[in-house]
């Protein structure tokens, strides 16, 4: 159901880490460890929705692989250990959609992946968690077919939890995404919102409290 993503990164552990992250968020991740293998693989009839590409690779490096991926119409996010401007600019200029500087946080990776995918595909019209249906465009939440009234902030909060289901989101991250980075509100506000969502949707066991971190919406098939 969700997008297929190429993960091209030579450090095995990092590659695996990215794959686990993507799979947890519901994507299908395909790992590759060197440039030449990717080049070979692309010659076959394959289609991917996105590629995460490390710049420094054995065999063909990231900059060399970029045109080949572009030719297949696969959007690319660069992974780079270098924070220097020159390589970022070079990557973006040559057609990369975005870049990610190591070390990065999980949510940052997922948000960037989602943004790039969003640019290429239409957002899903309906998100489902058990008997609850969420329509992002109309901002409507239905439980068992009955529409339930949601305040805007509560709706955004629910969207974030549903989009990154199975991943815990910290109170700070929720605050930053809902109110913006500058907001210096109390993390208690989040707890209040979560309590209301739980009550309205009867999600007491679905939105789990993760000690010392935040909340996680669990929905495993």
């Amino acid at each position: 159901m969700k997008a297929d993503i190429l993960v091209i990164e030579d450090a095995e552990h990092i590659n695996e880490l990215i794959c686990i992250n993507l799979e947890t968020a519901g994507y299908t991740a395909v790992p590759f460890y060197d440039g030449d293998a990717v080049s070979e693989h692309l010659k076959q009839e394959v289609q991917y929705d996105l590629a995460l590409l490390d710049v420094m690779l054995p065999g063909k490096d990231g900059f060399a692989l970029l045109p080949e991926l572009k030719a297949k119409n696969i959007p690319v996010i660069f992974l780079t250990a270098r924070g220097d401007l020159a390589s970022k600019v070079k990557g973006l200029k040559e057609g990369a959609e975005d870049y990610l500087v190591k070390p990065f946080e999980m949510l940052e990776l997922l948000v960037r992946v989602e943004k790039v995918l969003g640019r290429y595909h239409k957002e899903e019209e309906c998100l489902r968690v058990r008997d609850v249906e969420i329509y992002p465009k109309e901002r409507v939440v239905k439980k068992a077919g009955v529409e339930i009234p949601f305040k805007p902030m509560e709706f955004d909060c629910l969207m974030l939890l549903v989009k990154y289901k199975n991943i815990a989101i910290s109170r700070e991250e929720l605050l930053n995404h809902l109110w913006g980075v500058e907001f210096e509100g109390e993390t208690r506000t989040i707890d209040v919102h979560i309590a209301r969502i739980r009550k309205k949707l009867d999600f007491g066991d679905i939105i789990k409290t993760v000690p010392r971190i935040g909340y996680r919406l669990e929905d495993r098939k």
Partner: protein
Amino acid sequence: MKLSTKISAAAVGLLLLLSQIFSIWNLYKTKEQILNNTVQFEWKELEKDAREFEEKYKSKENYITGERAQKYWARVSFQGNLGIDSVLYYKKQELINNTPYVFAVIDQIKQKTGEAALEAQKYGMDADRCSRTFLEEIGETHLLILYQEINETFQMLRSRDISDIYRESREIFLQGMAAAFLLAFLLLVVLAIAVKRILRPFYGLRDAANRIAAGDYGGRIEKYGNDEVGEVAQSFNCMAQCVQDHVSRMEETNEKQRRLLGALSHELKTPMTGIQGYAELLQKVELSPERQAKALNYIEEECKRLSRLSVKMLQIVELSGEEQIEKEPLSVRELFEQAEEITRHRLKKKHISLQIEAGEEMIEGDRDMLLSFLTNLIDNARKAGSEGSTICLIAKEDGLFVQDEGRGIPKEDAARIVEPFYMVDKSRARKEGGAGLGLALCSQIARLHGARLQIESRMGEGSCIGMRWETDVR
């Protein structure tokens, strides 16, 4: 104030002062001489007149009686050639005055007879006769007054206007002054130009110093003579050269350290990304037990690697600061055996055997450092070698070497392999747990033992790496 102005001003001021003192003294002396001459001349005239008067008067003296007659006769005798600019006194009373002045000298003479005698002597006068010289000043006019007693009855006075002498001397003084100032001005101009010429090399020196201060360390003085200024210029050039060398050396070191730091932070990023990522994953996602174990294992591995890296970095930083180490005599064979013991376990895993080729050589060195040197090289050889290959520790006359049968080092990498964090095959080296610091450490240890790192390698056949003594320091 500029140096040339200072020197010129001082010279001109001194010249003016000295020349004025001299000319004033000179003028004074000359004036005194002229006055003296005038006084002598006038005295002679006065005495001549006095004699003439006396003779004339005495020729008829016997026929004259009574004061009236006497006065009359004296008046007649005084007329004629005599008595121009003169006064005749009769018993200290003015009798005839041919001058336009009235004199009041008689009273003064009474008081100063003692001095008068001395003065008369000075001008070669008859000291018996009471005589006296005066210099009187009436406004602008200077008068020379000479007084003599001819006898008890008659006294004579002669005056002479000597204003001319004073005026002329003043004029000469003023002219001299003007001439001195003119000369001083000339001197000022000439001196200023001359000093500026002499100082010209200093301006070059100044400009060069400014260039160096502005950061252009290549600034030099091109032209200089053989004088003291030239010597200064030469010393300056010498100094500039030293500064330039020093600065470029420091820049080199700086650049090296900057590169090292850059490499280090880059080297830290990969493990940090992994550790951070897996830790976050463990916190936020409910993973399967196998995946959890894997993530924890990975975090542990990376942490170990980081700590190895920091230990080696510390060693390198410490060693690169040191110049001297404490050395003790060591048996090479013992050293080799210790190195084998340390690495035995690791080598066994890959079924690599270690051979020792050493006699009874002794070397001077630090045991721990040399062991670290050998184990580093053995580890490298182990990573390069295939299963079941052999590593050979060799002690020769000219050094200690570790030989392997590994894959060798590509030629283009051989020069850079000593640089910290340089790895020929990055992803493989990381897999083996390397940090890229081993050879950098080895080269520092070799340097401290008076040796240099020698790398000989053939692709596919193996490498021989070790320390070769620079001189015979054993």
